[in-house]
């Protein structure tokens, strides 16, 4: 088990190897490659949120001079099967295929219907106007509650709800129901001194990465192809593309460019299969790039939810029972994050009686995709809000009520296993001792606190480590670097090998130059890919030891690795100088050739990461504006390999959570057309909306990782929703259980409370 030890490199804050490229504009993102003869692809999108496609006629577009190719759903050779895709975003291959290009039906406004490739982007747009599509418009359903009515229009007439017994006979828009139970909730509520029940609404929200989706595809004559794309997982993009196009996976080379943010949203293919098919048809490299409007309308946001929460609490703060029922918007195709939402919601607490039910409901909105801790912000917003209200009613400090019920090592998690060492209590205590929590609440303001939890995942990763002839080191791994993971890989390699950080570089290999790796998602990269890098370095150490042993004429087990050198074991009789990695590299030709290590693994034991956030807000009752005066994020990172990047995840996640709590929301008209599909009206925070977000990293090492790492990327977005909500409640005296807490909503709620 990893101890809290002093490391030489791990825990330091060196500059990242890709820093210079990023500040000078040299870093290449998805839409940056320029190839000779390259043409530009654009997508025609459905003007209706729900309609049958009667026909698509491309011929007039193809006649326009300068147009090189056009296609519609019928042109895709593969993909319509029923196998599951797996990975972070659920769903079937068949749904994925239709989401890439509609076949006989569109289920949301903006769904792709056809595409063209032309000499210039402008010409491509002109050509789109020449494509004739005949639709039969169907009624639209947008609200989960309406979608569950028997009279609701059905998005998928074959959809029979899974997860309920007996199996329903009639189709409905409810794809599945996920249930977790423990004990007897009715009995639990009876034991309680206080029982509360409330409704909670969270809006559909977008990841809002600043880089729109972009890629360049080049099909070669022999059937092989190369695709440059902005992705969180180029291996998964390769797999999906090969299936949709019926291509041999071995022929496909996917190169992950730099990625301008993903947050889960770039785990799904949209453009790549289209660009490649256009390239095959035209014989030219094709660049495709979405506009911001397309990103909002047609890439996966996360689900809006409608739910109810019920809690029973004893006077001393013990939770006797808890119940959550929550309907998630899937969008036009199945796949809302109902599983993790249900599994996460009670995880911070020991609760004897609970029931949680989450529903995956089809509505005529874009198909949702993963967004940081998918599902947990919505479900935990409900429970962290109602728990706070209970604490208020009982006059208990919000930290104390959480400490009373906190999960710790050995607690059975609501989803089954017993927790190994976890750091929730440590986070709560850190909050209690934090100077900002001890400071009085500023006059006229309100303070709110909430907790967050995320499982984190392991999954498959590969890494190779090559030692150059002068002893410098290249780490090749398969996880696209979004937030500085290359620097963290270098740090772990430096620590393991005992060589300078500066002599190590990490690169993200393409699908033909490194082993399979799952997406950068689930907060897994530093944990799982890091583990592969460490093991690959250990492979090198083993090889070095045996080469040194051969050189010195001793047995392999008589050599040790110490601070980057092979040394004889104490007591071994050898008049030899320690051999550094550079020495070994210089002599490699004589000792067996180049030194390389490799590791491929399916990482087990990802450590859960808990957080506690608190904030003070001031509310202007006249305008409804909420000013966030301060915000403190506390989180267990296990071990922070590069603390600046852990803080970066915590601050960035907090900013997204604050934005979602206060202003971000999808607004649709009755026809299902998003009304705010741009950054002007879909408001993500600018600098003046945020305080300096304070971070405190708690380190309770994860026993399953060589350096104690837990994932940190996702947990940070969860707690801000309820923390802000609880703070607004305390500032105004009014609980508003629907997000976002935008100025109009606050003014309306205060008016209503005033009148009541």
């Amino acid at each position, binding site marked *: 088990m990893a101890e809290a030890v002093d490391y030489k490199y791990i825990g330091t804050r060196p500059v990242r190897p890709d820093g210079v490229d990023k*500040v000078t504009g040299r870093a290449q993102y998805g839409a940056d490659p320029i190839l000779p003869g390259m043409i530009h692809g654009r997508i025609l999108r459905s003007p209706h949120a729900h309609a049958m496609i009667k026909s698509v006629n491309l011929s007039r577009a193809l006649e326009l001079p300068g147009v090189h190719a056009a296609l519609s759903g019928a042109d895709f050779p593969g993909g319509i099967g029923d196998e599951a895709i797996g990975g972070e975003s659920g769903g079937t291959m068949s749904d994925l295929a239709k989401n890439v290009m509609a076949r006989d039906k569109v289920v949301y406004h903006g769904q792709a219907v056809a595409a063209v490739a032309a000499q210039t982007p402008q010409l491509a747009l002109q050509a789109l106007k020449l494509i004739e599509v005949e639709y039969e418009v169907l009624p639209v359903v947008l609200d989960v509650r309406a979608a569950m009515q028997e009279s609701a229009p059905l998005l998928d007439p074959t959809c029979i709800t899974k997860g309920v017994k007996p199996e329903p006979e009639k189709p409905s828009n409810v794809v599945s129901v996920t249930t977790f139970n423990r004990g007897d909730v009715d009995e639990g509520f009876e034991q309680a001194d206080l029982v509360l029940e409330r409704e909670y609404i969270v809006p559909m929200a977008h990841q809002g990465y600043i880089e729109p989706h972009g890629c360049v595809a080049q099909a070669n004559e022999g059937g092989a192809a190369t695709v440059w794309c902005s992705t969180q997982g180029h291996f998964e993009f390769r797999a999906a593309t090969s299936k949709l196009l019926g291509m041999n996976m071995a022929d496909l080379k996917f190169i992950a460019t730099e990625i301008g943010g993903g947050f889960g949203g770039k785990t799904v293919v949209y453009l790549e299969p289209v660009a490649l098919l256009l390239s095959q048809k035209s014989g030219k490299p094709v660049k495709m790039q979405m506009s911001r409007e397309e990103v909002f309308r047609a890439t996966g946001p996360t689900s809006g939810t409608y739910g109810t929460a019920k809690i029973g609490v004893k006077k001393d703060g013990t939770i006797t029972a808890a119940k959550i029922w929550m309907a998630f918007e899937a969008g036009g195709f199945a796949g809302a994050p109902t599983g993790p939402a249900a599994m996460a919601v009670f995880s911070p607490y020991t609760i004897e009686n609970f029931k949680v039910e989450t529903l995956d409901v089809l509505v005529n909105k874009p198909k949702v995709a993963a967004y940081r801790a998918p599902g947990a912000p919505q479900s935990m917003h409900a429970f962290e809000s109602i728990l706070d209200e209970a604490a208020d009613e009982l006059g208990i400090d919000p930290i104390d009520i959480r400490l009373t019920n906190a999960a710790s090592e050995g607690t059975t998690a609501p989803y089954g296993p017993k927790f190994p060492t976890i750091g929730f209590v440590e986070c709560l205590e850190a909050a209690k001792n934090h100077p900002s929590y001890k400071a009085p609440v500023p006059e006229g303001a309100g303070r709110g606190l909430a907790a967050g939890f995320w499982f984190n995942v392991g999954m498959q990763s590969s890494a190779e480590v090559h030692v150059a002839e002068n002893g410098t080191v290249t780490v090749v791994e398969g996880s696209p670097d979004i937030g500085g993971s290359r620097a963290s890989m270098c740090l772990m390699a430096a620590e393991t090998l005992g060589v300078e950080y500066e002599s190590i570089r990490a690169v993200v290999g393409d699908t033909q130059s490194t082993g399979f790796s799952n997406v950068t998602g689930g907060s897994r990269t530093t944990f799982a890919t890091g583990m592969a890098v460490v093991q690959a370095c250990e492979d090198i150490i083993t090889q070095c030891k045996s080469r040194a042993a051969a050189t010195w004429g001793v047995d392999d087990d008589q050599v040790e690795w110490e601070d980057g050198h092979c040394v004889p074991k104490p007591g071994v009789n050898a008049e030899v100088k320690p051999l550094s990695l550079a020495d070994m590299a210089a002599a490699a030709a004589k000792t067996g050739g180049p030194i390389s290590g490799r590791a491929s693994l399916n990482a087990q034991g990802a450590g859960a990461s808990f957080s506690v956030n608190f904030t003070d807000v001031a509310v202007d009752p006249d305008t409804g*504006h909420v000013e966030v005066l301060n915000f403190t994020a506390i989180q267990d990172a296990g071990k922070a390999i590069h603390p600046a990047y852990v803080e970066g995840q915590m601050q960035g996640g907090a900013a997204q959570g604050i934005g979602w709590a206060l202003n971000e929301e999808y607004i649709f008209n009755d026809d299902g057309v998003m009304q705010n599909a741009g950054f002007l009206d879909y*408001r993500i925070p600018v600098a003046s909306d945020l305080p300096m977000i304070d971070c405190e990293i708690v380190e309770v090492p994860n026993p399953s990782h060589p350096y104690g790492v837990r994932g940190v990327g996702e947990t940070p977005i969860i707690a801000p929703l309820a923390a802000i909500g609880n703070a607004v409640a305390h500032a105004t005296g009014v609980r508003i259980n629907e997000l976002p807490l935008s100025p109009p909503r606050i003014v309306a709620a205060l008016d209503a409370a005033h009148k009541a």
Partner: protein
Amino acid sequence: MARLQINRQPVDIGNFAPHDSLLNFLRDTQGLTGTKEGCGSGDCGACTVIVQPPADAKGQLPAPINLNSCITPLGAVLDCHVLTIEGVGQPGNLHPVQDAMITEHASQCGFCTPGFVMSLVANQLRVESPAALKAQTRGNAIEAISGNLCRCTGYRPILAAALASNQTVAANPVAFFIPEAPQNTVAPITSTPHQYHHPTSLPALAQRLKEQPTTAATDILLAGTTDAWLNVTQRYTALPSAIDITRVPELRSIDATDKTLTIGAAVTHTELLQFFDTTTPCPAIVAILRRFGSPQVRNRGTIGGNIANASPIADWPPLLLALNATLNLMNAEGVTRRVELSDYYLGYRQTVLGADEFLVSVDVPADTNWQALIAHKISKRIEDDISSTMGAIYLQQDKQLVTTCRIAFGGVAATPIRLTDVEALLLGQPLVAANIDRACDALGQTLQPISDVRASANYRRSASIAVLRKALEELASGDRQTLTAGAHA
């Protein structure tokens, strides 16, 4: 033929269309892909570049500005020097801003980084002295980056980089002054075949308009393009020709006579911010302009464009209505006329402007008491945002009685409006609580606001009442407050 300079090199533009944007030219034609496209609509700042315009008619070199290249026509920067991220500094020779962005870990995914670097460098170029740069606060840094979105970092490390690099540059300012005047290798405009025109006098502008086969001047007349270009990038409208009015000296000046203060239609918000901050101090205008769009938008956007665009939520019209402004118009024949701003708006996006007419300037009476203006803007975000509602009140009192009162609102009707009925209730009366209540009630009765994604009608009404109440209470107590959706402008 070199028609502009990029990163110190003369560049031959070749053929281009009036609707080609600077961003596409940089990325697609020049291969300068360090400048990013995040939105194409002026909202994210990823496409920010710095532009040094050529010397004006008097031979003076205007200050360099940062702007959003996605909503700037390529034609607008003819004869200018454009500095992109590639020209700021390269490996081995980084600008202090770039260096600080690395050492403060201010770049996470890095996609926003070039835009932030450009805005921070532009901020340093704008500051008048090293001492002032050294003294910049976190507030200055926030203002400098208010037109740039970052989704990864929460901004804290970027602000740290801003402040750290300010110190480095303040210590050695000469080394880091980047943009140079464009080289004088520019051919005369008339000899070029393109259809992007830069008239350099009022008669030339009128003449050019006369020659254009178009129905309405507002289709082809371009000022800062911060409104007009959205048609081009969002709706992919092709422009057969364009008349850029930003180099017409008569439209670019602010002139004070004993009767009026005359503001040329093509004066930018940045220039007006400076004018009302120093030359003719007006705290209300300064507070509104500080929150107008972003530095990039203010550097390009003009007062004339704001008025002519005729949006009901534009920020200048309420201010100018309260200031009793008059517009000077001219048509393609060179004939001028004057129109009271209160008579200018006819309906939603409709004005009295004739098809061949354009705005020359705005007159405000010279005897304006600039301190008597109070204005409040309500928007969801403090910066880089459009108003939900905005109110401006010009009010003077004598012997405790209201002698002048003009109340104007934007965002509460199809056009910006004067509220003469409400004014009448206050005129000749003392500013006491009962009268303030009456005025606020009357405002609530009168307003028929719109509902849209930014705010509901009810919210607009109640926020407008709050605006009027706070303004009148301020005037009654003589105690200036700030009421912005953000508590501090």
